[in-house]
């Protein structure tokens, strides 16, 4: 509720520059949420999350720049979503058929991300080459400026998805996800088809990433091969790890922290921002796998004398059983 109210009110309070920044944070947080679904829920770490993001971004370009009209506006985002899901299903199928372990899967997805960027760069007219597409019109509510519209659109979608994912965590599917994540062998022995469960989480994550990519392209006006490459995929991992991968809000907190920090240093020293982000990342991932959300939660719960979030998520799973 507080978040919803904040999103509704903030565009009136912030200067437009920061409203645009907020819109991007929401969309990138949404993007990180896609990794939360596959990695945090089902233990599937992917280095190609940006490929699905890129598919979403290019679908926005196809819908508005390459083709025009209402039919294209409606058709291409749906096709993009279908393509992202199909691609994820294919990768998951191959991985499941090859019985890839977590580590091998990460490396295969890394290769997919590299390939996607190569394909998009070499795609000629179909993908706009290394430039991609420019001038994608923003989604605009009548009478309201584009940044505020973007915040409301993105915010509304983010809230709906957060609620959906929360529901998912508590559902039987969420239970299967955590069973496979925590002990795949035991889950298999209990009769879960681990390959299918992980594949499902991966496909759901891909769908969320595709949606985020579509929104990102709409509010930033472009779709380029960078949006589908390895660097952005890695960025999302940074958001989620720093923000906290055991918490659904970690995705958004991470995006806000990292992007805010980059914005601070963007004018003076962009490489230093990346350097410091990576340097901070190391102790966090080793010592505080809960990230910022985990630290906040740990603090709150230590004060209240309640169990930590990570344990609480597992307890939630047990309750749902």
């Amino acid at each position, binding site marked *: 509720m507080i978040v919803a109210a904040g999103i509704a009110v903030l565009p009136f309070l912030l200067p437009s520059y920061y409203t645009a920044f907020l819109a991007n944070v929401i969309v990138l947080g949404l993007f990180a949420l896609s990794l939360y679904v596959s990695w945090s829920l089902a233990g599937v770490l992917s280095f190609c999350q940006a490929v699905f993001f890129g598919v979403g971004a290019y679908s926005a370009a196809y819908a508005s720049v390459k083709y025009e009209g209402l039919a294209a506006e409606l058709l291409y985002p749906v096709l993009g979503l279908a393509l992202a899901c199909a691609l994820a299903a294919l990768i998951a199928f191959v991985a499941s058929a090859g019985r890839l372990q977590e580590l091998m899967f990460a490396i*295969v997805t890394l290769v997919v991300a590299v390939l996607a960027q190569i394909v998009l760069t070499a795609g000629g007219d179909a993908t706009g080459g290394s430039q991609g597409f420019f001038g994608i019109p923003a989604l605009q509510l009548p009478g309201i400026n584009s940044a505020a519209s973007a915040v409301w659109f993105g915010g509304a979608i983010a809230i709906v998805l957060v609620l959906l994912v929360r529901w998912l965590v508590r559902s039987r599917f969420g239970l299967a996800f955590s069973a496979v994540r925590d002990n795949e062998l035991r889950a298999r022995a209990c009769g879960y088809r681990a390959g299918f469960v992980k594949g499902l989480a991966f496909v759901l994550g891909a769908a969320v990433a595709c949606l985020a990519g579509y929104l990102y392209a709409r509010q930033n006006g472009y779709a380029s091969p960078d949006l589908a490459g390895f660097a952005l995929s890695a960025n999302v991992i940074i958001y989620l790890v720093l923000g906290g991968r055991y918490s659904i809000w970690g995705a958004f907190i991470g995006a806000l922290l990292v992007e805010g920090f980059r914005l601070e240093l963007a004018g003076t*020293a962009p490489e230093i921002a990346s350097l410091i982000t990576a340097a901070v*990342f*190391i102790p966090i991932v080793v010592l505080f796998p809960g990230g910022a959300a985990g630290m906040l939660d740990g603090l709150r719960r230590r004060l209240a004398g309640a169990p930590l979030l990570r344990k609480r998520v597992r307890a939630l799973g047990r309750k749902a059983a």
Partner: protein
Amino acid sequence: MTTVGNIIAAVAILFLVAAGLAIIFGVLRIVNFAHGDFVMAGALMSAIGGEQGLPFVLTVVLAAGVGAALACALVLLGITGKRIDAITGLLVTWAFGTVIRDGVAALFGAHGRFVATPVDGRVEAFGGAIPTYVLVLGVVAVVIAVGLYWLFSRTLVGKRMRASVDDRQMAEGVGLRTGRIAIAALALGGALAGLAGALLSPMVSVDPFMGFSYIVRAFLTIVLGGLGSIAGAGVGAVGLGSAETLLTTITSSIAAQLVVFGGVALVLVLRSRLAGRPS
């Protein structure tokens, strides 16, 4: 350069990079994502050494030292610790690589550098003129391959490492200090990466971001050849290096990368399918 020359150069470099990666993976069970940046550091050492007027052979040795030192720095990040699993190790080494890359870009600039070829001239061989340097490179790679074989089959250090690869707990049980073995493996792997970078430097433009393409290929090489095995790294390097170079000559580098990367992913899947190991 002729195709044969290109293949020799690609395979030699790929083997050196992948062998280091395989050694580190074998002992630590961690895929070293910073390996490409160790290669870059070695190449940069060679470039800066060249600018300072140091002889090439000396810069190669220094580059190996730089690679080994960077790899040992991973120990300080707790990479040999018990709480680091495969995925955490991947993330930590990746972030470490980013730190190296951005640090180098901030300290030494992000521009490309060139290194003069230490050995001039061409040799008529295999039906074309191959640069002498490429032949030297091939010989060095073969010598190192033989040296690694000797190290792992004939020396106590190598045998201890192999024991640690095969069964770490058992190795600890019979009194081997696996922590030290892990550091030795890191140093060896890092030295190979730095060496590969320095040897590579006369053939490419040296910049802070050059490591990525090597790490991707090296990953695929050890995946192709079987994780953690040096012989596998050799076989994988020959397969991947020659296939990509040939396809690049016949078609284009983009098509070659698509076919080769896709092909390796397929091999990976088929192999574990055929092996039928339960996961």
